[in-house]
């Protein structure tokens, strides 16, 4: 039996099971759809997600945030001392890229406190660290002029677009001594009065405050996730009074989180700049790329994809989504899923470190190749994978915005 044929028969069986169940309910109170993974021990899979993908990711990011804070401290001190600030700035940029890429890996599994409500246990902590696409470079410059960042209640009195990795990106990679704010946002004379050196100094001060905030939040996130009985433990070992009442509920939570690949990566990070949806300013929307100042849009997508692939394939001896599929006879479906993800990663590799806006202008098909491969993967996730494993596709991903 070839791959396609195997998948089709599997799908027929899954649909028939659902139909028989609903018919058997007499069209009154629908009975729960039978669990195709009944008897399968989901513990190793859930533990793998909690430990390998999330806990380790939060720990690595926390450490990277501390490094970023250190580099920004050095940059600020060098500016204050009149030393070689260009070298320190470059070091800070490297540290930002390292932290940013680690965060992109954790981004794809927004579970528990990192996620936004109404996600289970969601506290929107993710936005405190990285609020893209809610970013506002001009608001940051306003805060620079009036030194809002120095207020004791800066993080409480301002919104997430005033701080986080996105704000630091603008401060480190943006126009540095210039601002593009309209006059209703910043009086040009107020900006000019600071002088180039004054602006740079405040950028460094601002970035350091923002980084310190990230370090604090990253530590809380990791602690909340990992301590005994914390969110990670609850995911790995669900209990009725925990965030996830059962292994199946936890699996559903992980599955729903994977649709970051659909809504954020495919549609927002690629589809919108490519002009495939919600692009209102022209045929394409390069201004909607993620990380425009650092030119990091494609590398971020690649980081997202590699993490999704490890969740799909399993890592460090933990089973992955493909193992769950194999248990119900869906080996071929799992292979197809991995193949689509590999194709997307290869397409991202082909673009490499090239400036995304330039690629969009000169060879948009290279970006489209990433998008289309991801679409193949997400079509499988919300179609056959969801049916075969009897999982629910999140409402915002149920349709196809293309």
């Amino acid at each position, binding site marked *: 039996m070839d791959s396609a044929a195997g998948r089709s028969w599997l*799908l027929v069986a899954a649909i028939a099971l659902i*139909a028989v169940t609903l018919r058997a309910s007499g069209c009154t109170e629908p009975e729960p759809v039978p669990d195709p993974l009944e008897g399968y021990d989901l513990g190793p899979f859930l533990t793998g997600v909690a430990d390998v993908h999330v806990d380790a990711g939060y720990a690595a990011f926390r450490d990277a945030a501390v490094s970023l804070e250190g580099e920004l401290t050095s940059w600020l001190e060098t500016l204050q001392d009149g030393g070689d600030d260009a070298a320190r700035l470059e070091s800070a940029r490297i540290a930002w890229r390292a932290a940013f890429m680690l965060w992109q890996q954790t981004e794809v599994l927004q579970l528990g406190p990192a996620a936004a409500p109404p996600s289970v246990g969601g506290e929107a902590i993710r936005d405190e660290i990285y609020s893209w696409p809610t970013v506002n470079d001009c*608001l940051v410059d*306003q805060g620079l002029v009036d030194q809002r960042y120095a207020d004791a209640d800066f993080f409480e*009195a301002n919104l997430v*677009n005033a701080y986080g990795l996105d704000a630091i990106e603008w401060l480190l990679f943006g126009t540095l001594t210039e601002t593009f704010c309209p006059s209703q946002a910043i009086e040009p004379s107020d900006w000019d009065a600071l002088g180039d050196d004054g602006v740079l100094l405040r950028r460094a001060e601002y970035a350091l405050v923002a980084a310190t905030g990230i370090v604090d939040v990253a530590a809380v996130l990791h602690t909340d996730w990992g301590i005994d009985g914390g969110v990670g433990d609850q995911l790995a070992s669900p209990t009725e009074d925990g965030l996830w009442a059962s292994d199946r509920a936890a699996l559903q939570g992980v599955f729903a989180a994977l649709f970051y690949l659909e809504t954020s990566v495919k549609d927002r990070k690629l589809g919108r700049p490519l002009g495939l949806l919600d692009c209102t300013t022209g045929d394409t929307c390069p201004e909607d790329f993620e990380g425009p100042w650092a030119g990091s849009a494609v590398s971020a997508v690649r980081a997202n994809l590699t993490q999704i692939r490890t969740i799909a394939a399993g890592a460090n001896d933990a089973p992955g989504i493909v193992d769950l599929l194999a248990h119900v006879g869906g080996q071929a479906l799992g292979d197809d899923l991995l193949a689509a993800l590999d194709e997307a990663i290869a397409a991202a590799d082909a673009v490499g470190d090239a400036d995304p806006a330039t690629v969009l202008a000169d060879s948009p098909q290279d970006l489209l190749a990433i998008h289309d491969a991801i679409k193949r993967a997400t079509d499988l996730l919300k179609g*056959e994978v969801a049916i075969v494993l009897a999982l629910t596709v999140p409402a915002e991903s149920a349709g196809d915005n293309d």
Partner: protein
Amino acid sequence: MSRSLLLLIPLLVACPTVDPVPGDDDAPSTYTYTFESRFDGEDSVAYSGQTFRHVLIHDLKSWIGGLTPRLDEGWFPAEGDVVAELNFFLEFDGDTSGGLEHGITTTLGVDQVTYGDIASGKDLLGKLAGNDPVGQHATWATDFVGWDDPLVTTPESLVRLWTYQIEDQAIAWSTGGYPLDPTGAPVPAVYVTAEGHDLNQLMQKFLLGAIAYSQGTDDYLDDDLADGGLNSDHEAARDGANNTALEHAWDEGFGYFGATRDYGLHTDDEIADMGAFDADGSGSIDLLSEYAFGHSVNAAKRDRGSVEATDWTAQAWTGFVEGRAILAASNGPLTDEEMAALQLRRDDAVEAWEAALGATVIHYINEVIVDGEAIGTDGYSFADHAKHWSEMKGFALGLQFNPRSKLAPDRFAQLHELIGMAPALAGDDVAAYNADLITARDMLGDRLDLDPANLGDDHGLGGW
């Protein structure tokens, strides 16, 4: 193959759901709001202008809802920018904007993509209570009650006030000037004020009352004019149409209620949760007949949420359908008996419409009571509190626009004195305010003949 298999799922699992009028054995004589024209034999139902205004109200709410992320992502509006964009909907110009896409989407897609695909020559403010010069039972320049602000003398002045408030907050928001909630944190969205007004909810709910409910009950379904509403001509076809002025007036009343043409075939859950039904199996939704708007959806929600069963969806549906059937069956001006029968159907429909609206006010009174009691606990949400209060206030303002209201003007004024101008927040006398809300709830229930079992307890629980 996989796609075709997926398409089979609904067929495999579909259950028969034919309940002509949910909860009512006395089904109307026809199951859809479709009536043959005596002039050409085609369907004579037409209310595209009402659908158009429902779409504008929907899109206005979406626009306001999207304002916060626009500002957060770097829009710095100058004075007049925000008001101008709000006026796009309020003063809609079909000549310049009819070709633009509206904002209603469904999973099946919609038949009408642009505003112009739905209707032409319509706006919102022109039909706001007080602005439509004929047929209104009160002089809204002097009789408008419920919003205690010296700048507000008419329904339009209230709408204009809110547009300027939204603009003022938007300009301040863009430069980091956020209103603060009682804890000192920025309010959750630019359309929420520090005092607990959700201007988006207030605007939308008020427009549903001051346009849809007002026009429906006080214009098209009223009979106080010699040649308007139910006294419209029923002899000749309107110019270029296959229905009479009276048939069209009745349809327009139905259109403002917002039901689909097959409303009576669906359960309360289906109407409340789905609201769009591909009745003709075309594969997409016709907004002119297959999409439920505003009041008709709220009626289903209240029926569903009643402790002691109500069936206002059925009552309204039966009234509208049977009344229209009387018109379709007559071949000329109505006899006195036919007019009396028509007025009875009108009274049934309007009574159900008012009851559902009143029950919706009570639903939000209960939500506000619960919010007030949650102040200081982990479960408290200022955003929810502002939203619920504004839904309550916005819907409650609409009750005055029905000439057949069971709520007399003095009681209406009392209702708004009790509801007040803002929720009681942390630091206020919440217990006293909640007691006022319970008084308002009981008075409203009594006047509208609502079953006490549905009103809720002293904590806002156990009822709507």
